[in-house]
């Protein structure tokens, strides 16, 4: 269905409800449902109405039917009850009592409008109210009739009274007092005459096993009210509402606003569309502390400490990417208390680059596409969000040409990227911004550019969080409705309006600067969310590196290269190459101590007062042989010893690079 509501049409509204349906066992329920449909369908056909031309909706224990506007209303009311009675008799004749059908039926007519949520109109609501009216329930309960029909005052006046074929005399006026409906309606019980409303119940007691059950059911809510609201409360004309189901929705910060508004909308709608007007659920929409914290909490089954640190236990999780879900699923493999069910995505958003107009003119002069190598000063990336994780993934993928994070040069390469990031304002001058299309377009001064190699796409999956130990069917239905709602035409429109792409990849009517109408080329990668986060965070750490060298030219050259590794936030300090060098490093706050020597060094003391890693670089043949002081020092502090002399096969340059990679791993590796 389209997003625009259709014009209101004047239609006949029929609703039926099987009496005491949910008291039955499952098998008869299914049998009854089939029987009900067969009977209705046949009854419609019997009186010349095309069932397939009607709009009908299943209501579990009943059916809601809209008769096409071109069908005369009198035909419905003059033919249908009679035909239905015949069909019900036929069906019931071959069933035992458990599977027999008795119906309540209400008919109204009026302007009815369709929107993508379904059908709306005062007369639809009225039909449901009438279906619940006490006189109708009583009529069925106090008689053995197979069904009872109620019609609105206006329907009676306009359609039934003027039409002898509709047998107006078989209807009697009743008072109705259901919610906002206070007034009269008209009741018809087939099988001759008025129902035995005033008759004392003793007379038919033996025959009325089922009606008694229905009556008992009717009494229950009243009793309930008596208990909870106290004796002072007047018994309401309709059953009280059951408490709304609590639905906790954990959502990424990126979608928080739009999802909250959609959840509240559905929450309100649940009352409007519920036949009794009861609000069916309460939603709590929250982000947790961060996407990372939320994923970690989910991965350990949401422990009590996570309640205070992250928030309430979620029933639905709406992260930015499926990559995050995969990571949590892996963590949950060893647990039995929480299971995740990955459902479809609810929106899309490619990861793009934002640039000021002048930067965009430089790096993407023609088609709005950009090469990653031209991205020199990106704004800092925070991987604690799903979007940030994807941004980091895009940068890592571009730098490594893949996502193999086990390579020995990963720490150095990642540090090269993270050190180039800046906290200066994005999209001002040369500072670019990597983020979702939505966030970039929302940022002042940013023009959206697309990576030529393809963009990672945030797929915004819907994840059901199941707790097998305490299943809750009522909530599960709400969870499914929530998903349906999020992918409905109206909700998709809201996602587009908020700057997301809908699930088909379409954008909203007012795209930001540079946003493309068509879908950008897609880069399909499946990052390991946890590994990328860990690697990125490690590479972003500020490190202090102490360098101790023997003063030889080769050592000086290498020391200079170590200086070159450091980013603007890092610090490199000189340390004396003495026995106490490791402890001297600790005292000056060094995280890594690099020993560089062309000559023999004195034995290095192993005892230190804090954590430090030692990387040793020997510039003579055999400097790293076992039991040499360099070797021992590196061994004692979690590092390695590298010789960078030319030997067969690999020249000193390669060995130098390997040694620098090792220093980077010690400083910025996991």
């Amino acid at each position, binding site marked *: 269905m389209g997003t625009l509501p259709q014009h209101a049409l004047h239609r006949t509204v029929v609703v039926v409800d099987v009496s005491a349906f*949910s008291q039955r066992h499952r098998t008869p329920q299914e049998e009854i449902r089939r029987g009900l449909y067969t009977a209705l369908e046949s009854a419609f056909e019997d009186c010349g109405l095309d069932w397939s031309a009607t709009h009908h909706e299943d209501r579990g224990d009943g059916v809601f039917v809209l008769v096409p506007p071109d069908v005369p209303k009198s035909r419905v009311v003059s033919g249908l009850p009679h035909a239905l009675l015949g069909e019900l008799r036929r069906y019931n004749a071959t069933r035992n009592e458990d599977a027999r059908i008795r119906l309540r039926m209400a008919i109204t007519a009026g302007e009815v409008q369709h929107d993508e949520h379904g059908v709306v109109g005062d007369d639809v609501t009225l039909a449901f109210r009438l279906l619940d009216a006490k006189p109708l329930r009583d009529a069925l309960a106090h008689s053995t009739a197979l069904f009872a029909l109620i019609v609105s005052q206006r329907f009676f006046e306009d359609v039934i009274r003027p039409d002898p074929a509709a047998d107006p005399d078989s209807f009697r006026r009743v008072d109705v007092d259901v919610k906002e409906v206070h007034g009269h309606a008209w009741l018809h019980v087939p099988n001759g005459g008025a129902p035995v409303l005033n008759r004392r119940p003793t007379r038919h007691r033996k025959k009325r096993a089922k009606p008694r059950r229905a009556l008992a059911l009717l009494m229950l809510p009243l009793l309930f009210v008596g208990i909870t609201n106290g004796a002072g409360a007047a018994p309401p004309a309709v059953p009280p509402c059951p408490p709304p189901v609590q639905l906790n929705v954990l959502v990424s910060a990126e979608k928080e606003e739009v999802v909250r508004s959609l959840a509240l909308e559905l929450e309100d709608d649940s009352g409007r569309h519920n036949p009794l007007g009861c609000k069916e659920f309460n939603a709590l929409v929250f982000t947790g502390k961060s996407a990372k914290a939320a994923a970690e909490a989910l991965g350990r089954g949401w422990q009590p400490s996570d309640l205070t640190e992250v928030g309430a236990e979620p029933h639905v999780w709406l992260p930015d990417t499926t990559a995050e879900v995969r990571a949590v699923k892996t963590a949950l493999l060893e647990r039995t208390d929480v299971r995740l069910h990955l459902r479809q995505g609810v929106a899309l958003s490619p990861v793009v680059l934002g640039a000021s107009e002048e930067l965009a003119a430089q790096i993407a002069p023609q088609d709005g596409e950009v090469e990653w190598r031209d991205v020199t000063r990106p704004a800092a990336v925070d991987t604690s969000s799903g979007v940030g994780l994807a941004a980091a993934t895009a940068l890592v993928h571009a730098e490594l040409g893949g996502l193999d994070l086990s390579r020995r040069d990963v720490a150095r390469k990642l540090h090269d990227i993270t050190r180039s990031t800046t906290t200066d304002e994005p999209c001002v001058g040369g500072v670019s911004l990597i983020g979702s299309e939505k966030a970039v377009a929302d940022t002042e001064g940013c023009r959206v550019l697309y990576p030529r190699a393809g963009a990672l796409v945030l797929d915004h999956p819907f994840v059901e969080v199941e707790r097998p130990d305490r299943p809750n069917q009522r909530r599960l239905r709400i969870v499914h409705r929530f998903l349906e709602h999020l992918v409905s035409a109206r909700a998709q429109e809201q996602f587009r309006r908020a700057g997301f792409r809908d699930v088909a990849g379409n954008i909203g009517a007012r795209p930001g600067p540079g946003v493309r109408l068509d879908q950008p080329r897609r880069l399909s990668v499946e990052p390991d969310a946890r590994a990328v986060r860990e690697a990125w965070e490690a590479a972003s750490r500020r490190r202090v590196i102490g360098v101790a060298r023997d003063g030889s030219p080769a050592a000086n050259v290498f020391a200079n290269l170590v200086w070159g590794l450091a980013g603007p936030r890092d610090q490199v300090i000189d340390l004396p190459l003495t026995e106490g060098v490791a402890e001297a490093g600790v005292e000056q706050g060094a995280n890594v101590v690099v020993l560089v020597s062309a000559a023999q060094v004195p034995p290095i003391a192993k005892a230190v007062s804090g954590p430090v890693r030692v990387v040793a670089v020997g510039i003579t043949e055999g400097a790293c042989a076992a039991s040499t002081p360099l070797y021992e020092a590196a061994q004692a502090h979690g590092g390695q010893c590298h010789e960078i002399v030319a030997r067969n096969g690999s020249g000193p340059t390669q060995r130098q690079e390997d040694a620098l990679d090792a220093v980077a791993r010690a400083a910025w590796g996991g």
Partner: protein
Amino acid sequence: MIRVLVPLVVLLAACTTPAQDDARDGTGPITFVDGRDTTAGGQVGKLVERWNEQASRREQVAFVQMPTSTDAHRAQLTARAQDLEGVRDSAECYDVMAVDMVWTAAFAAAGHLEALDPVEFDVDRMLPEAVKAAKSPDGGRLWAIPWRSDAGLLYYRKDVLDAVGEGPPTTWKELRRQASEIAPRHNLHGYVGQFRRYEGLIVNTAEAVWAHGGDLERLDAPETKAGVRALADGFAQGWIPREARDYDEPASLDAFRSGRALFMRNWPYAGPVLDDAQESQVVGKWARAVLPGASALGGWNLAVSRCSASQKTAREFIKFVTRDDNQRLMGELAGFAPTSRALYEEPELVAPELRESLLNARIRRPSPHYDELTSLMQEILHHVLEKPDSVDQSLDRLADDLARVAEGR
């Protein structure tokens, strides 16, 4: 429809079958949940430790803290209780729950709580309004035991009032005069409170309405309208600053603490903050008094969950926590205002103005649909405060809407 009745039937079954005796008399390890323990030195945790030291090994209590935000706290309790409807032997049951007094009716109506015996807990020794808020609206059943209470106070700039030879106001009229005449001469806002769109707005409005003889349960009454109009006029005339429409407790405290307001309505916790020389510019310049009218009663109750399999232990634990000696201890160590009346007779446990405020405090209307009622009221009242002309009409309409919401629709 009948489908809707099923949960009711289930609930009803739970209501009418007197709790299975096994569970009612059951003893065993239990879980106690309360909000985040922000008391100095974690006094709630220590109270639980004291129980555990003296209780048998079978009846140890595990203390679980709930999310900081009240919405999330409530959502967690509700969802867990719904998950365990009809379940009796789950280790995941929150056997004893601390519930905000305004949630109690809703939790009880939803069938999550066990009714308690007033005699067993000797609730006659407690603040009658607090006990009333813990009972069903008709007073027939007791659903929880009042544990700690709270009431509002009027904080004022004593230095300023002293300088003009006046004392704190005892009526709204006087408050209005001082706020509109004295405050501007000292370059101060007249009055700040909590008028953001949240529960604090209901509390502040209720207090203004009570001070004018009205009641939020009679929204269309002239006295109620007068109370709401008094606030709206305050905004219109400027002695309540516009920005107070966005104030919650910390924001209003900040305005007063930084020396920008003559009067502030706030809870007792504000006192120690105003005395903190690091943060406060009004150290030694402020004092506090009772509000010029009744305060709204705040507070937390302890309830036994229906899912609890060890309800005897749960009740014993509640008795332990609400015992006078433990209430006294929590008053001294954690600053909790007690619910036991006897403790208000003891000098120095409760400050005199707080004592007076608490003993006269009134409750907000208990309802199973409190949430819906209050959010609807918040919406309208927040709007009305900006438009004094619309008070009459808006409150009349609100009265109608609330009648609908009161049915849960």
